[in-house]
């Protein structure tokens, strides 16, 4: 018997943070313009000491303005999608569930596009205007989750297979609507294909970062409070109820929080697929399945570790 203790959990989180740090350094270093570790360390040191004059222009141009924001965004998006994926997998009792497969990402994409279409026609203060897209994405995600959930019910119980089928169908349907909008709309909507492909390189306003950060902390915190309930839900709703889980409450909390997370991620990065599917399984391989606090180390681990450097390497000619 080796139950999870606070000490072990902190150790695991620390190990994941170290890995994350290494990956971030690698992501900063590699790209179209190579940056030496020494120069990077020197510049970071100067930044810490507030010695602005000693900081090289390379650092400001490439790292501060391009690579770092993108890495931070990758971290947040990856964390959001993985937490959402983990909770969907537990709640729906299906190892294939993930925001992308269930159509939630597409729904969020559609919501975001609709918000972009509406935006020029309403007058809002700049702060609210920047938040309109995340809000649309969240509403789109929430609406899709509701539709998929209703489609997946059979005689009042969630049927896993029906639910996945419902998700796949909904996703295709929403993608079709997005395609239709892409083909009929003109004008610059930040390149609509962005919503289908996923992209981390779009510059964002500061308020969006705050919105994203607070939304992520709030929603993951809410999911974290249901972590041990979710572990029991893996065995089925009836069994979980007999073990003392308030199933309707957990379902409500997780649906809202996971939709919020997906909506946030999609509103800034488009529909990035399969992070929410794969990362939870990798975590289970490493840390075991019934970890009472599986939701906890996840955000740390999942921060799109390989995705950021990979995407950046692929994009390197256009984006140093």
């Amino acid at each position, binding site marked *: 018997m080796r*139950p999870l203790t606070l000490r072990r959990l902190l150790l695991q989180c620390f190990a994941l943070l170290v890995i994350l740090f290494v990956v971030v350094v690698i992501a900063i270093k590699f790209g179209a313009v190579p940056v030496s570790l020494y120069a990077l360390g020197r510049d970071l040191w100067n930044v810490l000491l507030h010695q602005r004059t000693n900081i090289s222009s390379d650092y400001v141009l490439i790292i501060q303005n391009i690579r770092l924001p993108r890495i931070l965004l990758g971290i947040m998006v990856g964390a959001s999608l993985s937490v959402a994926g983990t909770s969907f997998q537990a709640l729906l009792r299906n190892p294939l569930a993930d925001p992308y497969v269930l159509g939630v990402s597409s729904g969020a994409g559609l919501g975001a596009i609709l918000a972009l279409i509406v935006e020029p026609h309403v007058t809002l203060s700049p702060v609210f205007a920047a938040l309109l897209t995340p809000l649309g994405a969240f509403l789109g995600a929430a609406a899709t989750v509701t539709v998929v959930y209703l489609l997946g019910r059979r005689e009042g119980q969630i049927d896993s297979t029906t639910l996945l089928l419902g998700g796949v169908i909904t996703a295709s349907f929403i993608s079709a609507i997005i395609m239709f909008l892409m083909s009929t709309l003109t004008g610059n909507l930040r390149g609509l294909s962005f919503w289908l492909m996923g992209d981390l390189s779009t510059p964002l306003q500061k308020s969006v970062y705050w919105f994203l950060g607070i939304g992520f902390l709030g929603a993951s915190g809410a999911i974290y409070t249901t972590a041990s309930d979710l572990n029991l839900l*893996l065995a089925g709703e009836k069994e979980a109820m007999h*073990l003392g889980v308030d199933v309707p409450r957990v379902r409500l909390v997780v649906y809202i929080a996971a939709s919020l997370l997906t909506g946030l991620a999609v509103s800034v990065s488009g529909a990035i697929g399969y992070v929410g599917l794969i990362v939870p399984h990798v975590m289970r391989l490493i840390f*075991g399945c019934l970890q009472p606090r599986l939701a906890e180390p996840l955000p740390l681990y999942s921060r799109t570790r390989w995705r950021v450097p990979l995407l950046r390497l692929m994009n390197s000619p256009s984006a140093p």
Partner: protein
Amino acid sequence: MSPGSSHARHLAEAGRLANEIRLSVEQVSYAYSANPAQAPLFTLEATSFQARPGEIVAILGPNASGKSTLLKLIAGALAPLSGRILLNGFVTHSLTPRTRAQRIAVVQQESRLLFPARAWEFVLQGRHAHGRSLRFESEDDIIIAKNALAQVGAADLSDRWMDQISGGEKQRVILARALAQQPLLLLLDEPTLHLDIAAQIGLLDALRRLAAANRYTVVVVTHELNLAAEYADQVVLMQRGRCLRVGPPINIYQRELLEQVFQTPLTVELGSSGRPRVTVLAGTET
């Protein structure tokens, strides 16, 4: 004697009786219907029985007689159409899931696992209702889980994977999880299904021992007439949604009654233990 003292004596008497009865099923009925406008697909007619701490109650009856429905009603998973079920004076259906799980443990026919777990992790799930949601398992929880495994003779299975142990071993670990809940009432839905005869007897011996030692009230739904006769203190006999008889096995196990309920020719004799024994006369029909 003054009327006041007589009243007090009555109250004391009532209190003693209330202490004696742990589970009280009072005129409970239920109806399943796919569509409220149509006639129900299945009805459970008013059923009553009572059970004391340490007692084993077996619910017997052919398929579709309402055994599992009655068990779900007792577990509080379904709300009765009429009547009520009291556990130590509390209506089971109106307890919160958490409080209910602290008092009632349910062992179902099969426990599906989506992702593999070790036996000890599985047993620790039984402690869920006793902890706060953000709390880590305490030393006490771990001791209780270990004891539960030991009580069902499965201490050596602790570190094994649940999907790599035999059906009988699995059933014992599931029972251990129920024990880890430290319930007042233990409900089992066909616990001996898929078990060989030695495992069946092992499980029921363990149940009888645990019921006596921990003062559990045990309610078992089963198809095993002879095991029920051997181990139950009370039998609830059901047929097509009706509760036909309630009482000790010796009163219920009558040839004509059982033949009529189970639609099978059989004989009933007294076994060496003083309990009735049923022999099904298969192949004697002409």
